[in-house]
């Protein structure tokens, strides 16, 4: 078959579409080598180049192939010729797809020994050392980076598997096991033909020295690791063609489905690579041009659905080079990985994600306490799970409800700025949890999609800087410069470089959108960081768009100097707190899909949602908080459901409603202070100190009291109050109250080791706690204990201005709490004491 025949078999439009690459590649090489295309010495190469060169100009191609590929072409095909089998008459070969289908009809012939290879043949492939590997040719096609792709399915030799995993009946020396591992091989590596027979045929063949190395028996499939399928009829498979074999081996060579296939895939990957490593690295070194298609290796386990597009893509550029670019890659990849090791951020190892609940309806029960929860209950648990996932603040959402106005405003100004290639500042403010960052990210995502469509290239770059995620404000320069240039420099140098960068005129520069989250944390004393970030957008050529986010509406006026707030401009977007209607809208939006999907198995009642959103809206309008309440309510409901007896659960038929009660519980849990509990659990002495403190303060009216006075007060109380109940209890234990409280010396209570008792103070602190301040580091554990126990709140937030207490420090506070509140506290404490003593 010569070139003209080949051309004849290919339709003109195919030439125009698919074959342009190879022709072009030829042309390029021809021009480089001055028509010395015979370098490869291949008969195909010669003819191909000679006859196709004329058509190159006619087609007018652009260069798509890298030079080294075309330069090496032909080498691997040396000594081989191929022929394309005629397609069936009458089927016009129009599409590339049909070409692809037909391409697998290629038949290869080795010049040296007239060895003929076609799809479905079994061959011995040199493995570098040891006995050659056995392979089944899956197909031969025109490749993307080699001229001809020979893709094979590997057999595993008996010697590659350890005896303990091998099935009993397959331990013959000539046993091989077909694996679903697909790999491309080089023609050079093919040693010769071999025969793989079924068990029955193999028995009929007599082995001697002439054929023992090339005759094999295949009874089973394997995953190349430790799994072996049940015996199969090899003859049957061969007769049905290679594609069928491939499909079957993929199914059979995977351990039975007690685990999900996806999981299996993950587990397999490492082993797969391991085996691949054992076989091919030597090949790479020795033959220097072994083609390993890792992609194919991976796709071996992938579903046919995923496989098909890939193949189609490959066929888009058929009949290109024969020589892979791989030969250069080992040397290239080493320095890259070395560099990576120094500079890149380490990556944490990944773990296999446990699919405890499969996407389909089967439920994998893996939990001890869920063991008894079967069928319907399991589904409920699963829906709980799903609902929770949706409600968590981290859930991925398609759209953000209730922020339409703000996002359109933002979108408008960003589009305007990007298209006009002008710098701009936008200031966004709002209390925590009202969706500022989420909205901006959403808008940026939309922009990426919408603006990129114009010419298939992105129109702007994007960077996020969070003021609270930086250790110091100037680190923002480093982050910005890293984004611009990809280099890591120190903050000072980065500032200079940035200054220069934004000053210079660069037509090709893309606009850069910078999101400055938590901007107020980037304010330094002289505010240079802020100044610079708002100054650069004013440069003519900077094309820098800054979106600054902070909590307070008037931050520019309050915190920043005039020169900065004037640069900030007037584009300000205010995110008001969510109203309760909006909050419930958000929750409903998140739950929408679930309720439809689970056939109302799990319902969160409207009242409950309303309650949660009203509770939050009245305080802060923080969406995060309302979501957290709902999640917690779900958890409480789940607990309640699981703790119900089995009959009741059955009676529910897997239906469960999360009501207002659950939400109430969740809200209470989150808002109640643990203080009452805490006070209740104090020891008698600690409570006594507290009472003495409050009583004494009530009497004197001063906010801070010396410890000595409190001790005095305590002594007085012990003398005055009867504590009959306590005394009775103690006498029951054969103890006396005063002995217990005063120790054995029976002197009056006195605090030792505090330096002097008159210099320790109880002071209400900023957050409403009383703190014992003493000028010495406490020497004794019991006193340390007292100190900690006495941090008791007395609701004085508004008036007490004393600042916090470090051990051994003293501060003066300026105001005393309102009387009424103190009396409140005292009565509460007294009640508590009465109850517990």
């Amino acid at each position: 078959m010569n070139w003209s025949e080949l051309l004849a078999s290919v339709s003109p439009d195919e030439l125009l579409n698919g074959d342009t690459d190879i022709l072009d590649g030829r042309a390029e090489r021809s021009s480089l080598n001055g028509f010395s295309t015979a370098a490869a010495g291949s008969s195909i190469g010669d003819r191909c180049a000679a006859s196709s060169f004329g058509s190159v100009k006619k087609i007018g191609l652009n260069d798509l192939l890298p030079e080294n590929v075309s330069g090496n072409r032909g080498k691997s095909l040396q000594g081989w010729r191929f022929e394309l089998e005629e397609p069936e008459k009458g089927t016009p070969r129009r599409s590339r797809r049909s070409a692809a289908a037909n391409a697998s009809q290629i038949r290869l012939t080795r010049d040296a020994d007239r060895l003929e290879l076609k799809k479905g043949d079994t061959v011995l492939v040199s493995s570098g050392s040891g006995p050659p590997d056995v392979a089944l040719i899956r197909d031969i096609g025109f490749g993307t980076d080699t001229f001809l792709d020979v893709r094979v399915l590997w057999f595993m030799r008996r010697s590659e598997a350890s005896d303990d995993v091998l099935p009993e009946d397959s331990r013959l020396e000539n046993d091989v096991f077909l694996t679903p591992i697909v790999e491309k091989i080089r023609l050079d590596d093919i040693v010769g033909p071999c025969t793989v027979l079924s068990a029955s045929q193999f028995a009929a063949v007599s082995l001697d020295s002439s054929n023992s190395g090339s005759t094999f028996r295949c009874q089973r499939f394997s995953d190349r690791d430790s799994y072996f399928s049940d015996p199969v009829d090899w003859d049957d498979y061969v007769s049905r063609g290679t594609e069928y074999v491939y499909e079957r081996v993929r199914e059979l060579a995977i351990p039975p489905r007690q685990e999900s296939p996806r999981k299996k895939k993950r587990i397999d990957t490492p082993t797969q690579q391991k085996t691949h490593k054992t076989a091919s690295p030597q090949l790479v070194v020795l033959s220097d041009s072994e083609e390993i298609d890792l992609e194919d290796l991976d796709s071996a386990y992938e579903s046919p659905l995923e496989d098909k597009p890939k193949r189609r893509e490959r066929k888009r550029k058929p009949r290109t080079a024969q020589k892979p670019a791989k030969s250069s890659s080992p040397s290239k990849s080493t320095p890259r990985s070395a560099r990576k090791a120094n500079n890149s951020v380490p990556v944490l190892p990944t773990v296999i994600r446990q699919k405890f609940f499969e996407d389909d309806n089967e439920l994998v029960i893996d939990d001890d306490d869920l063991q008894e929860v079967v069928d319907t209950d399991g589904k409920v648990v699963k829906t709980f799970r799903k609902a929770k996932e949706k409600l968590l603040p981290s859930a991925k959402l398609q759209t953000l409800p209730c922020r339409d106005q703000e996002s359109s405003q933002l979108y408008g100004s960003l589009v305007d700025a990007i298209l006009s290639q002008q710098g701009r500042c936008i200031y966004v403010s709002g209390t925590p949890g009202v969706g500022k960052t989420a909205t901006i990210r959403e808008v940026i995502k939309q922009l990426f999609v919408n603006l990129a469509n114009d010419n298939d290239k992105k129109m702007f770059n994007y960077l996020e800087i969070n003021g609270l995620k930086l250790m110091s404000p100037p680190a923002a320069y480093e982050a910005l410069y890293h984004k611009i240039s990809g280099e890591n420099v120190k903050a000072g140098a980065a500032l200079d470089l940035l200054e220069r960068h934004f000053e210079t005129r660069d037509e090709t520069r893309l606009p850069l959108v910078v999101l400055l989250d938590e901007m107020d944390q980037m304010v330094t004393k002289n505010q240079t960081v802020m100044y610079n970030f708002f100054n650069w957008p004013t440069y003519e050529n900077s094309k820098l768009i800054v979106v600054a986010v902070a909590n307070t509406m008037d931050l520019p006026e309050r915190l920043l100097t005039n020169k900065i707030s004037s640069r900030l401009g007037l584009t300000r977007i205010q995110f008001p707190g969510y109203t309760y209607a909006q909050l419930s809208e958000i929750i409903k939006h998140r739950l929408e899909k679930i309720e439809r999907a689970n056939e109302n198995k799990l319902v969160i009642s409207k009242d409950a949602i309303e309650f949660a959103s009203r509770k939050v809206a009245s305080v802060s309008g923080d969406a995060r908080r309302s979501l957290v309440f709902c999640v917690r309510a779900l958890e409480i409901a789940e607990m309640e459901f699981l703790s119900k007896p089995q009959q009741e659960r059955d009676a529910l038929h897997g239906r469960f409603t999360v009501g207002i009660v659950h939400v109430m519980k969740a809200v209470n849990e989150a808002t109640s202070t643990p203080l009452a509990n805490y006070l209740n659990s104090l020891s008698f002495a600690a409570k006594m100190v507290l009472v003495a403190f409050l009583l004494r303060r009530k009497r004197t009216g001063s906010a801070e009291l010396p410890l000595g006075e409190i001790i005095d007060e305590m002594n007085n109380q012990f003398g005055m109050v009867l504590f009959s109940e306590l005394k009775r209890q103690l006498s029951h234990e054969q103890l006396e109250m005063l002995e217990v409280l005063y120790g054995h010396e029976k002197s009056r209570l006195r605090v030792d080791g505090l330096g002097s008792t008159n210099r320790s103070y109880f002071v209400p602190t900023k957050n409403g706690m009383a703190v014992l301040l003493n000028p010495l580091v406490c020497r004794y554990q019991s006193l340390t204990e007292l100190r900690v126990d006495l941090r008791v709140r007395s609701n004085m937030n508004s008036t007490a201005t004393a600042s916090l207490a470090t051990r051994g420090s003293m501060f003066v506070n300026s105001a005393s709490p309102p009387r009424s509140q103190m009396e409140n506290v005292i009565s509460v404490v007294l009640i508590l004491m009465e109850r517990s003593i």
Partner: protein
Amino acid sequence: MTVSEPEQNLELLRRRVLANLSNRTSSGLAKVRLHNVEMEQVQIYKMLENTIKFNEGKSCLVIGPRGSGKTTMVNNALLDLQERFPNMFYVIRISGFYQSDDKSAIKEIARQLDWHLLRHSGNWNVSFERFSANETMNSVMSVLDGSQLMEGKDQNGDNDEMQMPIIFVIDELDRYTNDAKQTLLYNLFDVAQSSSNSHAVAVIGLTTVTGVREQLEKRVKSRFSQRVIQLTKPRQLAEFCDNVYCMISVDPDDFDPLMFDLAQKYNAHMKMLLGGPSELRKLVVHNFYTVKDLNILKSQLTPYIAKMDMTTFSGGPIINVNTNNRSFQILQSLSELELKLVICAGRQLLKNSMDQVNFNIAYEEFEKISSSQTNTLNSQLQTMGRVKLDSAHHSRDLMLACWERLIYYGLLVEPIRQINGINSSFYTGGESNKMFHLDVTVEDVARLFRHKDWVTKWCRI
């Protein structure tokens, strides 16, 4: 009640009990039995299990007074998890006492991540810890934070791969609230609440401060999962006794079958002691009504168990941790001159109602009193006959040495003044002008030495 058992069995039992008491609960290497916190432990376990299984990020605060078993409880939960999900998560522990600011905490996180990574992969080349704090922060955040919108990264890529879940345990969380920015807490809570499919982080904060939630900055508070688990001290005496029993009893199943009986007998005996009138019971009750602190009880019980006669289970001596008389004991050991100096200092404080006293004041008083005493003595002698007594003269240097010894003993204490945590006492004067607090009062001295005549005299003002 007597037990006839081989000596080594008894010793083994004793060692087990002492190991329980020895306070090594926070290392997290072995489970420590706790009483009455099962519910809380299950809650923490469930939360972390959800993080590992379903990538659900959560943050949670555990609040409770010292010695209530916060750390131990979390450790127990982590040990359970480690058993069930071996090598499927990392635990990173930081403590507000050891890593006192955000920077060093970030460094410590990076270091521990490195350690985990090295253990996992044996790769020395990569490291989270960098030279500069900024870069360390960046590298740590890059693995923790999955929420940042990056260019060219498919956000919706729903892959099965998931980064190792990380569990942060922050001891003394309140320390990190002192900083105005609260960077560490912000970041940890943020990554926890934005945990996605690929990044799962759980944060457990332990603190003794009841009102720590109010101390969180508003942004931090918004990102916190609002989950608080509170541990309190037992309210009832019976409950407290159960706690103590849990502490000093042993689990019979831990021993080999031969010792099963012995362990049970021991437990029964301990239960009886705690239930009925006994020295042990008295100790527990005393503790319950005053400090209610298991840790103190532990140290008191250690000699009790160590000296216990194991054949009869009769306990050793109970050491009273009496904190009330340290200064008095020192007073009794003082030399006469030192005691005089103490009295003089005390007199001055009392007379002039001062806070602090320095050597010069005390010495002046000392001279005055001693000379007046010699004078009275001399006048008395004079009336009796013509004998004159030279006043015993003590040099200033000698007295200064005494003064310094008092400082060394801790009877005179230097006042510490701090403003915003910085020691603000700067003193440039000479040694004899430095002001001190006196740890005792003149009344104390008079009462303590009421049998010595001269002390009573000196103390009389």
